[in-house]
């Protein structure tokens, strides 16, 4: 058996880093919703894909720059996130039931996407797609670099906001003990709706990054669920930095497995890491 070359390993690790960044970006809003709002929001994936399709539409048909579509997509997803959470609050949906309810919402979003854009493939052809940088023998594609940069910036930005702003502290207090936080004057409903909107907006950003990199079909929504859930659980619920770090660990470990062994072993590696961590540090996720 030939040993893989250094270039192959490094290029594969880069590929894992990039897709790990995307796992982290999608997982960011999901983890916040799960950890702080106690809503296991499967509709986060549906919202991300809806955002991807809106980005596709605005860029392909409307002629907008894909990144400029963020100006429309993010407020739209913020509003949808707020509306969705208001609905869940109205019916006092428990965390476990939120999984079922948001799965239903995902199915509705998928059907809506299919009725507007059909089930056929949609590919956003942008000026970013073909651009890449070269460092020695290694290549860094621009869409993936942008995605990673956005994921890192948002994860650190939200971490800082949670840690250093009154709003962030109030949200953490509500997640910790809502009645006590309310007794101190924190408006639980308003903060929950605001956070749900932020999670929706994060899904919107992830959707634009998906559209930049991937060909879209409605059924692709579900392809991301397993691995992003693993990243969120590995990274810790409610943690802004955790899903990004975990996503990168999963992405790189999968990519290196693909580089040295059979690519079909890659999913085994990521889920083995998750199971091992759950065994080693139970209750930490």
């Amino acid at each position, binding site marked *: 058996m030939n040993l*893989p*070359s250094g*270039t*192959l390993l490094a*290029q*594969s690790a*880069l*590929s*894992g880093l*990039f*897709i790990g960044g995307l796992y982290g970006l999608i997982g960011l809003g999901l983890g916040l919703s799960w950890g702080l709002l106690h809503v296991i929001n499967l509709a986060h994936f549906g919202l991300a894909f809806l955002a991807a399709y809106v980005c596709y539409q605005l860029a392909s048909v409307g002629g907008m720059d894909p990144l400029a579509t963020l100006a429309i997509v993010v407020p739209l997803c913020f509003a949808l996130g707020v509306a969705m959470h208001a609905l869940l609050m109205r019916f006092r949906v428990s965390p476990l039931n939120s999984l079922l309810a948001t799965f239903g919402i995902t199915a509705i979003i*998928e*059907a809506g996407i*299919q009725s507007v*854009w*059909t*089930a*056929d*493939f*949609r*590919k956003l052809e942008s000026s970013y797609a*073909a651009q*890449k940088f*070269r460092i020695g023998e290694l*290549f860094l*594609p621009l869409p*993936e670099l942008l995605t990673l940069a956005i994921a890192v910036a948002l994860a650190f930005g939200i971490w800082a906001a949670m840690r250093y702003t009154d709003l962030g502290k109030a949200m953490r207090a509500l997640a910790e003990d809502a009645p006590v936080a309310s007794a101190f004057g924190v408006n639980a409903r308003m903060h929950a709706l605001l956070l749900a909107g932020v999670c929706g907006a994060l899904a919107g950003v992830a959707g634009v990054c998906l559209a930049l990199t*991937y*060909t879209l*079909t*409605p*059924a692709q929504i579900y*392809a*991301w669920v397993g*691995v992003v859930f693993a990243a969120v659980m590995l990274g810790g619920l409610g943690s802004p930095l955790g899903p990004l770090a975990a996503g990168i660990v999963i*992405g790189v470990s*999968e*990519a*290196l497995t*693909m*580089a040295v062994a*059979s*690519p*079909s072993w*890659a*999913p085994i590696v990521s889920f083995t890491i998750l199971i091992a961590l759950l065994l080693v540090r139970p209750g930490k996720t």
Partner: protein
Amino acid sequence: MKKHTSVWHRLGLAVAVTFFAVPVALAQGAQPPIRIGSTLALTGPLASTSLVHKVVGEIYVEQLNKRGGLLGRQVEWIVKDDQSKPDLARTLYEQLVTSDKVDLLMGPYATGAILSAMGVAQRFNKVLVHHTFGIPSLAKYEMQFPAWSLGADPANTVPNTVLDALGALPKPPKTIAVVTSKFPSVHFMSLGAREVAKKRGLTEVLFLEWDFGNLDYGPIAARVKDARPDFVWVGAIGLEGTQLLEAMSKIDYAPPLHFYMYPAPGPMSKSPLAKNALSMTVFEEHPPFTNAAGAAEFISLYHVRAANARIPDTSVEVQAAASYTAWQILEAGVRGARSLDDKAIGAWIKANRIDTIQGRLRFDGPSNYGDDLMRVKQVQNGRWVTVWPKEYAAPGATLQVP
């Protein structure tokens, strides 16, 4: 007197019409339509391709009814959504037979659902004509009939056809990389390609498998680049081939000769990265295929209907042609048997050759498969054209190499 006769003539005519023509017309009108039942994956991961089959079925039934229907009766197509789930397809086919009481069955889309439908058809002794079943060795039921003429042993014949085409090049490939999805109807073909390549003296420099649904093609692309094969056999289905090509492009690599098993037709032909990509076909929109009876009319109708259904790629190729062929086979079977009796229809199809837009098909081989009519096609100037065998090549088209 003349006037009197004329009145009587008119009266006689009215009586005749009342007592003979009207009842006949009423009887014809009162005859219920022949109901053909099927499922399609109208939602779920297979929906993009199923949409093609839906459009083709609608066109065919409309054309059939314009021609007077079948056995003097109009035809109604009942299509249910199996949501890309083979288990649901089985339930729905049972419903079609036992509850909807359809007269005939038409196959669903994709190998898994067809296999489910085949079990139901076998239990109720119904004929099942199907569009694109990918694993002929699993088709055991005697009254199932394939519309996709890929032969009884495609794992052997298809790779041989591809390597025949490449062998005719001034500089044939000496090394091969086989990279493949583990999707069932693709995987066994890729394993066949390994065996055929070995028998033909090609050196295998890489063999890789990935799970269907893989999201990161970067490391696979890097390994292909590292292996430097003369020819890459990509056992891919749907978007996988395009995703691998995109990953290759991101590391500045273009495979010299590259073949894709079942690519999503639109995205690959439209992608500039897919220049000279090879695949297999049973029909493309150029002579000699378009010389088949009905082909030209079907193509022009399909262009309009597919555009109306917002299908981005409106060209007729493997899926649409196989779908149309399936309806042609069923129509020929009913007309040939002059009956809706499934056993009579099945016996007639098995004993006869049927002219379709793919060519003249027979169903008397193993698992009712006939000749292997798979040809090699290539992306040239943003569209698929057949390049091998030469007698099926598009006018002026030859196999292009970098």
